[in-house]
């Protein structure tokens, strides 16, 4: 702490010179980044006329909760109703992903053979597969498996897409866990699978958190796979597909557009504010290591 202040001290003077540029840069951020969020928030509580005549204004005496209530109670394309379904996808995929990626990463990380490294490459190649475009052929595979247009099919497909990066991150982390720990467990008579789940896995907490955050945000926001894999007969909507399906119905009715968009982003924003530090470090690690 003191060392840091000491280091910073001499620079303070110099920084003041260039401050103008920095202040302008940061000042620009406020309208550019804050503006859209402000528009979204404010207009969700206004009447159609107020939105159209003064999209940036706040007519305090005419603010209303009605559009939001209408959106929450709407019988169609109800975004709030889709929270549960979307959350179910997120949870199930997270569980499958960790359950499968963890042991696989352990086997890969603890192997010294070149062939097992090839296995890592095999998984890594998956990051080059453009998920959106490969959904189309994936349909035919799911169809053969009898899983088309089902929750199970969607969840399995999503899990498969999360494996490459998840395994890669966990392999990297397991490599930092000393092998002595495994050996000690093995002397105690624990099998490898048990060793992994009871001894190693608890040590992977940071990596697991990273994987969970990466996957959860990605899945919550995913549009293509639920749009295409979740068939019409399933009648289930995720947040994104509910918005997408609904918006064609009410493009001109801004008292529906804004509240619904607000409801769609609210959970992620709350999650983001609450877990900001973890999310940022999680996504950063995910990006640089993945």
């Amino acid at each position, binding site marked *: 702490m003191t060392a840091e202040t000491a280091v910073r001290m001499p620079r303070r003077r110099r920084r003041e010179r260039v401050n103008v540029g920095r202040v302008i840069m940061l000042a620009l951020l406020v309208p550019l980044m804050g503006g859209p969020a402000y528009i979204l928030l404010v207009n969700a509580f206004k009447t159609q006329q107020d939105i159209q005549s003064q999209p940036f204004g706040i007519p305090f005496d005419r603010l209303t909760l009605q559009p939001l209530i209408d959106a929450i109670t709407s019988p169609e394309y109800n975004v709030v109703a889709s929270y549960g379904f979307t959350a179910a996808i997120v949870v199930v995929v997270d569980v499958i992903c960790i359950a499968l990626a963890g042991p696989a990463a352990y086997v890969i990380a603890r192997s010294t053979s070149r062939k097992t490294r090839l296995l890592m490459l095999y998984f890594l190649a998956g990051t080059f597969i453009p998920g959106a475009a490969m959904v189309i052929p994936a349909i035919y595979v799911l169809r053969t498996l009898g899983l088309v247009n089902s929750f199970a099919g969607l969840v399995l497909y999503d899990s498969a897409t999360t494996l490459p990066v998840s395994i890669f991150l966990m392999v990297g982390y397991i490599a930092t866990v000393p092998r002595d720990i495994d050996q000690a467990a093995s002397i105690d008579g624990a099998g490898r699978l048990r060793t992994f789940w009871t001894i190693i896995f608890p040590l992977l907490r940071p990596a697991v958190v990273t994987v969970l955050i990466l996957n959860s945000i990605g899945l919550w926001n995913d549009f293509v796979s639920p749009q295409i894999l979740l068939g019409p007969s399933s009648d289930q909507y995720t947040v994104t597909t509910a918005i997408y399906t609904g918006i064609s*119905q009410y*493009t001109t009715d801004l008292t529906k557009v804004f509240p619904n968009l607000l409801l769609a982003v609210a959970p992620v924003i709350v999650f983001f504010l609450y877990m900001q530090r973890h999310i940022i470090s999680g996504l950063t690690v995910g990006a640089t290591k993945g």
Partner: protein
Amino acid sequence: MKGKGIWRRVGAVAVVAGAASMVLAGCSSNGSASASADTAKAESAHLRIIVNISPNLTVAYWNKLFAKYEKAHPGVTVKLERTGTISAADKLNQDLAAGDPPDIVQQVTPSADTAKLFTDLSKESWTKKTPLVDNYKINGKTYLVGAGEQVQSLVFYNKEAFTKAGLDAAKIKTVAQFTKAMGKLKDAGYVPLQTAGQWVTGSQFTLFNDSTTMTKTPDWIKKRREGDVTFAGDKDYMKSLKAYKSWVDKGYLQKSDLGLAYADGQTNFLEGKSAMYIMGSFFVPAADQAKASDDFGVFSMPTTGTYPTKQFSNIADPYVVVKQSKNQKAAISLVKWLTTDKTAVGSELAADGNFRKGYTYTMSSLGKGVQKIVDASPGGFVEAADEQPLPGYSTELNSQIQSLYSGSTPKQVAENLDTWWDSQTQ
């Protein structure tokens, strides 16, 4: 996303033809009775149906209509399947790809290639009394049946704007007169002609051009398919493009309207911001709903050829039964009800401003105006079967027409359309 609109709307033109054929059809009012009689004994089934959702035909509208059917047919449930922002045809393709097609689809016009996907309804005798059924036959077989007909070679106008500009709608018969009228409307402070983005731009051009072209050369599209004509080489087609381009250049059409959704554009016109609007008969119920139908009038599409032109017609609320459906009997019963039952048909006609001989509903003054045009027209033309353009054409045309707003010349557009067409049939 854009594509569907055009042919749906173009389809509406078929309505006109339908209306025209009302005169010949002389059909029936007994459909409903027999329909409900035999569906009543249909076994229980869970039916899924893709329908067209529009400002007139809302989800709530369809659900209400289907609820009526369910009530009369215990054991049968009908579930509406939403298409999001894509067309019914695109939706059906997706569902087929996913191996989970619905039982019935509305607004998909079978072609010779796709006919095998649908159930052959030729044996069903009731289909013979449905409107325009012969125009949509493929190799002599009936796959598609509809509830009514739409007409689309129409120009709606704002009466107040016409009064202010000193115009008489009855005197606008040629494209030159139409163009001149737009000048006067502009001087009077109006946006002369309303358009919009999405599929509307290309669709309006189709309505404008094809009314002349198809009246003169009824098999024009077939000829294009066979390479006997080209867009760039067709004098009438070029005339239409040039006229349209001149409207863009003179500011009669507003570039900013390309940023509007279909419903937004229509709202502008209904609110009196623009003076004229090329659209099918389905504009009538929209105006009725806004309680504004008396403020608007309608005239037949101006032409460079003989006036009046034939009406761009299409079948309204057309249904096909998907061959893969496991509920064939129940699905056919529902389609029969939707296309022959008095109440169902009446409701569908009224909801979208369509016509059918023998089925009436209370029409507004605007609706009657359309009816008059239909009665005076020399018939209708339908762009189906052999006269159906290549799949994807409406999307491409829409793009090309929109490009006229940003500098493309009529010649470039026509040549691009030819290039595109030929690339699809390589």
